[in-house]
């Protein structure tokens, strides 16, 4: 790993100022960034740790919206996001206990790994990503694998999740990495159903529009019977073919609908 300078500001303003430097990059839980720096896929000149900023930690819920601070770790969400049980359950299934004690929601969303769990939750919930300078509707946030609408030096300060009537996340685990081989997050709101799928597509997390329409009309796994996700844009790797993942999309959506509560 190449060396770097390390700073740990205690306010968002100081962090944003430190990130003005072209070579600077935010560090949150480090559960993605540190491994990638070891592989020299990333070589920032300065790491700006966000973990000293107390204002970015914690969970609150008001008026049907759950707000999670950008550097809140997965273990805290698992334990304290009871107002949105499917989201707490998702956080409890990320990686392993040590990863959950360090990794954060902001790091996961900013990274937009095509097999990560939080992107599916955010997209299925119609969440709002709040940064130091603006609010981004989740439908505009994810822009293909490892790509988001975030500008250089912009940091996620919190994420707002409208709490659905019912929801479920069903993750088909890749047993070695514990990431999602395919994971589906289904939500039902008064104005309709949203289905977001991670782990499957070359484009990263996506909404399955046909399933959303069918499930809005009839919220039952049977409503999916005639539908299929095309396999052409799906990922093929040693863990599964594109056809296998396309099939999993439908199976896991059905399971999520059946389990939604």
């Amino acid at each position, binding site marked *: *790993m*190449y*060396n*770097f*300078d*390390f700073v*740990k500001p205690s306010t968002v303003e100081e962090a944003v100022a430190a990130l003005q430097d072209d070579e600077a990059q935010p560090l949150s839980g*480090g*559960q993605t960034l*540190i*491994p990638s*720096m*070891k592989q020299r896929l990333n070589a920032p000149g300065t*790491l700006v*740790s966000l*973990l000293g900023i107390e204002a970015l930690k914690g969970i609150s819920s008001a008026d049907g919206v759950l707000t999670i601070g950008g550097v809140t770790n997965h*273990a805290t969400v698992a334990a304290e996001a009871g107002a949105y049980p499917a989201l707490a359950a998702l956080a409890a299934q990320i*990686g*392993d*206990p*040590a*990863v959950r*004690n*360090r990794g954060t929601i902001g790091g996961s969303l900013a990274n937009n790994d095509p097999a990560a769990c939080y992107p599916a939750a955010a997209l299925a919930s119609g969440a709002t990503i709040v940064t130091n300078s603006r609010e981004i509707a989740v439908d505009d946030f994810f822009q293909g694998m490892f790509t988001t609408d975030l500008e250089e030096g912009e940091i996620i300060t919190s994420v707002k999740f409208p709490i659905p009537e019912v929801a479920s996340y069903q993750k088909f685990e890749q047993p070695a*990495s*514990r990431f999602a081989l395919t994971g589906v997050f289904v939500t039902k709101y008064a104005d309709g159903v949203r289905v977001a799928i991670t782990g499957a597509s070359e484009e990263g997390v996506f909404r399955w529009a046909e399933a959303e329409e069918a499930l809005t009309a009839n919220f039952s796994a049977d409503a999916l019977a005639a539908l299929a996700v095309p396999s052409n844009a799906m990922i093929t790797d040693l863990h599964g073919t594109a056809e296998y993942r396309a099939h999993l999309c439908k199976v896991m959506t059905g399971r999520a609908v059946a389990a939604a509560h």
Partner: protein
Amino acid sequence: MKVQMTVNCRQVSGEVEGRTLLVTFLRDGQGLTGTHTGCDTSQCGACTVHVNGQQVKSCTMFAVEAEGAEVATIEGMANADGSLSVLQQAFQDYHGLQCGFCTPGMVMAAASLLAKNPRPSEAEVRRHLEGNICRCTGYHNIVKAIMAASGQHVTAVAAE
């Protein structure tokens, strides 16, 4: 950069680079070689230590991030008189180790589970060990040791 922390209740400090991993600081800086580097890719859990009471992979955290923290390693697990703790003794009694490489991480992970959940079910033990890989034992005896350390009968542990 200078870094200070408490390791096993002892105040320590040392000179590190930004990129110095916590595991490197512990092993090379403090001579605490009980914490192992297995994979160095955040997968195996051999490097598990506690930072402010939370289990973390010390290969996936920088030493400077532990500034001011309370760190606990396997060297701090024995009783004050040097005898093995209940959990360590259970690993020995139930053959929870063969080569022993994964064992410090297993013990630290198990200690963290038992601190929160003193009588875990077998399924909870297995789930908690998801991030700790053992190439030797096949896990059954590790699970038995943890069940025994929590005062539970181990004959019931499934030999799946």
